């Protein structure tokens, strides 16, 4: 017993721990600077955010101790119980939670606020690692894929219902973990295609989408066939039928829209082409047609879903996300102010507490989502690039540690930690410099807030603990 414990302390990856401590210290200094005012100067003033953050940091150290004391088998053994308890919390916050900034995602007990969505990431990571590591699983069968989708999408749906779109989107980063564990690259392409089609359906006129899909199908056909005669026949059939439908429409005053005319033309011509293809035993044409029609149906149902099923405030959120809606004093305004703040920092920054942009309250949410502005303004390019490099170093270190695990559970968990941190870092910093959409998620270890700090701490240190015991864990 004694021997095993010393082993653990010796096997801890102190490099990661030191990285964590550096980030958290730098983070606190920035919160101090972001909310600093001449009236309150004591760092322990808990009426101020930096004072509170100091409390959260101290609490994190206690959490780290607890994580180290818990046996490593605990997570794998209780994975499902932890997961279901978290789902219950996510459901109950919908009914018992308090709405803050439009999202009903907080439990409020006295002065203490707690956001279950932050901890749901930990629980989902644990259960995903447990499921994938069981029975040498291959991520190929439909049943397996379905179970994984259910594990990930249940918290996503609940968090989306809480109106916390940002936190819900984080879960899509698990696709990186699945990819590492053998998910076919085709699924990732299909995922990207569906996302692209989804966004295009909202952004672009449906006629353009229709023709784009039609042209893509034709290109695939040309790539497969290469017979000039066949291509010309296909082109002539489609144009001719569409033209005839158009003529009939005009002649009899059916008043069909141009879109419907094209749709009918395409349907008739594809029936003709299918018969010809059937004769010539060109079966691949049916796959092309299948993809073509499912894309058209999908694009139309997105339109319907968006306009008829989503609530106006959800529509607005998606619109802002996709930059359809231009809100000068809303999201776009924040990004402009944020870019000014970061840009004004120059090479070495204005110095500690000297930021004017962040101080004037022109950058909103400066201690939470836009904390990176303070770094940019006061620390300049030196500060921002060091922070980015520190984060990159941490991510690569976690991947390195994950790859040296003997247990698949530990490895999957390591990838979960790296992916979640990566998504938060990339999206949060990206939005402050205008590269990614404005999604309200915190910058790990930097943003003000107990729940997110603790969730990231627990996530990272469970992995450090797993790594420390890597010699005991197999399979």
């Amino acid at each position, binding site marked *: 017993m004694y021997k095993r414990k010393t082993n653990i302390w010796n096997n801890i990856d102190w490099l990661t721990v030191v990285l964590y401590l550096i980030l958290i210290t730098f983070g606190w200094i920035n919160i101090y600077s972001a909310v600093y005012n001449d009236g309150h100067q004591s760092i322990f003033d808990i009426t101020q955010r930096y004072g509170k953050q100091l409390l959260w940091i101290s609490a994190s150290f206690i959490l780290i101790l607890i994580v180290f004391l818990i046996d490593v088998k605990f997570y794998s053994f209780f994975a499902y119980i932890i997961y279901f308890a978290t789902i219950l919390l996510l459901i109950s916050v919908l009914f018992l939670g308090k709405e803050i900034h439009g999202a009903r995602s907080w439990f409020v007990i006295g002065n203490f606020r707690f956001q279950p969505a932050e901890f749901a990431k930990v629980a989902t990571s644990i259960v995903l690692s447990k499921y994938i590591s069981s029975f040498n699983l291959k991520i190929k069968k439909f049943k397996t894929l379905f179970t994984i989708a259910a594990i990930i999408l249940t918290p996503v749906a609940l968090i989306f219902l809480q109106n916390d779109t940002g936190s819900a989107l984080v879960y899509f980063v698990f696709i990186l973990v699945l990819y*590492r564990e053998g998910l076919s690259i085709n699924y990732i392409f299909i995922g990207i295609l569906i996302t692209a089609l989804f966004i295009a359906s909202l952004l672009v006129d449906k006629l353009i989408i229709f023709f784009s899909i039609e042209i893509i199908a034709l290109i695939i056909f040309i790539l497969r066939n290469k017979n000039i005669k066949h291509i010309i026949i296909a082109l002539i059939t489609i144009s001719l039928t569409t033209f005839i439908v158009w003529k009939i429409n005009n002649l009899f005053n059916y008043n069909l829209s141009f879109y419907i005319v094209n749709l009918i033309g395409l349907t008739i011509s594809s029936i003709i082409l299918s018969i010809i293809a059937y004769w010539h035993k060109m079966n691949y044409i049916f796959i092309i047609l299948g993809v073509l029609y499912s894309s058209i149906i999908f694009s139309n149902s997105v339109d319907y879903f968006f306009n008829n099923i989503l609530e106006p405030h959800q529509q607005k959120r998606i619109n802002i996300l996709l930059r359809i809606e231009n809100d000068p004093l809303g999201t776009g305004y924040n990004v402009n102010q944020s870019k000014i703040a970061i840009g004004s920092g*120059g090479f070495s920054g*204005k110095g500690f507490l000297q930021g004017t942009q962040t101080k004037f309250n*022109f950058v909103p949410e400066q201690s939470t989502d836009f904390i990176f502005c303070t770094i940019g303004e006061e620390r300049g390019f030196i500060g921002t690039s060091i922070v980015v490099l520190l984060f990159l170093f941490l*991510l690569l270190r976690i991947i390195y540690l994950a790859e040296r695990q003997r247990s698949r559970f530990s490895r999957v968990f390591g990838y979960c930690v790296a992916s979640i941190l990566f998504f938060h870092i990339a999206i949060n910093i990206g939005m402050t*410099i205008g590269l990614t959409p404005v999604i309200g998620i915190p910058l790990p270890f930097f943003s003000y807030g107990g729940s997110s700090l603790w969730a990231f701490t627990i996530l990272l240190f469970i992995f450090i603990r797993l790594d420390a015991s890597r010699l005991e864990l197999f399979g």
Partner: protein
Amino acid sequence: MDIYKQRKYFIQIIFILVGVVYIIRLFALQMVDASYKISASNNVLRYITQYPARGLVYDRNNELLVYNQATYDLMLVPRQLTSFDTTNLCNIINISKPQLIEKINKAKHYSYFKPSLFLKQMSSVTYADLQEKLYKFHGFFVQTRTLRKYPKKFAAHALGYVGEVDKAITKKHKYYNLGDYIGISGIEKSYEKELRGKKGVQIFLVDVHNRIKGNYKKGKYDTSAVAGANLTTTLDATLQAYGEKLMQNKKGSIVAIEPSTGEILTIVTSPSYNPNLLIGRIRTENYLKLLKDTLKPLFNRALMAKYPPGSTFKIITALVGLQEKVLYKSTQYSCHGGYHSGRVTVRCHYHPSPLNLIHAIQYSCNTYFCNVYRNIIDNSEFASTDEGFKVWRDDVTSFGFGNKLGSDFPNELSGNIPTSAYYDKYYGQGHWSSLTTISLAIGQGELGITPLQMANMTSTVANRGFYYTPHIVKNISNKKSIDEKFFVKHYTKIDSSYFPIVIDGMEKVVNGEAGSTARIAKINDIIVCGKTGTAQNPHGDNHSIFIAFAPKDDPKIAVAVFIENGGYGARWAAPTASLMIEKYIKKSVSRKWLENYILNCDLINVQTQDKHME
């Protein structure tokens, strides 16, 4: 064993790629793009809100009623303060040193970093003085604002006023910041969104000497202010001014409406106040003074005072009787000094008897309408008093009584038409009858009607059975049209064929032989149709009421006049209404003796004793 191990490289490459792209982007933002660099000389950005000009307000003939005047506010950012010559500043802006220190502390308390309002509305002379020396006072700058001005000094209640937003408003509406103006009453309030326009922001580079060095990034991040929309009101400035003049030294209200559109030509509340009293620095002080005034000049009588309509309501009783087929043009009742039934007596004055409907209106016979009212309620077609009363009430409320009309004023009241539930509660169910409520027949009792509702009823009669919701704005400069609801015809439950009979009676009221109740309102070559009324007032002298429209065919104006403690309707209200009609239709008043009679009438300083019945 682990055939996917090489996939780790792909993930690592994604991480590194994102890291590299972000560092390049940061390099571009912070190092390459020089325009973001303002740190070198410790310069700061100053955000100056561009306040749009609030929309102007015109009358129906494009006479200017409300405009803006520039003023200058001194602002302070406490964090930028350095030591300065306090005596010098105190002298320029004319405040004492303790005041200066208090103001600085107040600004610090609000925020170190955000600009605070330091001194409101400096004169242009002070501003010119200060502008030259402003560079000596770091942290101070001047912001230009505008104040409302009312060149006509009238229609204070209708136009309303603007004031600074308070904390509650800034929390509720993100558009407003402390110190912004917002419409608080009248059309300033109901058309706030149209009038205010949209604020803009300009970002300037300011050097260490607090001097503006130029636009930041050539104005790339600036937004320009959008001026507020101008409003054309339905008011006729000449008529409004005339109405307010006639109402001098009297308490009450005049509302005049153009029946064919529902446009409010005049809306007078008396006593009123000069709207220029409630602007800028003097507003709070004057507001408190007006609030303390025992004559309640801030009380908007035209929209908020509820009066029993008195005999003017006989018009409604007649129309409901005709509609419910308990009254015909030829129906006659005789009257011998009053209506008697059981222990109830409603007295009447001397007039010929018996009377048909037209003459009953002409002589305003109480007995006649008591009979009509009882026949409506006790109609044998209905099973109970309750049912009869509900029919009566439905017909009455279809004139817009008992509910808010839905005009474009922010603080309209609904008045009161009692319900059967009210009497059930008051007398007990089944313990009241048409006789218990007989005073409703002649417009007394629990009825409460606002002057606006009364003018609207007059307009409805003039239109022979419908009204357009009264409104005060007819055009908004940046919109195609005002609210569609003002173009909807509201029909009453009375068939339009019944109106001409009643209108004939109203014509006789003014133009009939001796004994008609309001011959004083007669105008040569304009057929005025009217009806007098006297509202019983338990607190003092009765209120004088008159409603009228003219000309009889194709009416141009419908007017309701209420004069508190003015005695019977024909005494003050009828001549006032008549003068208003003459002024509007003929553009000038020929009956100078009548005008002087009204102008010299003082019901406030000398309480006249007048206990006449009609």
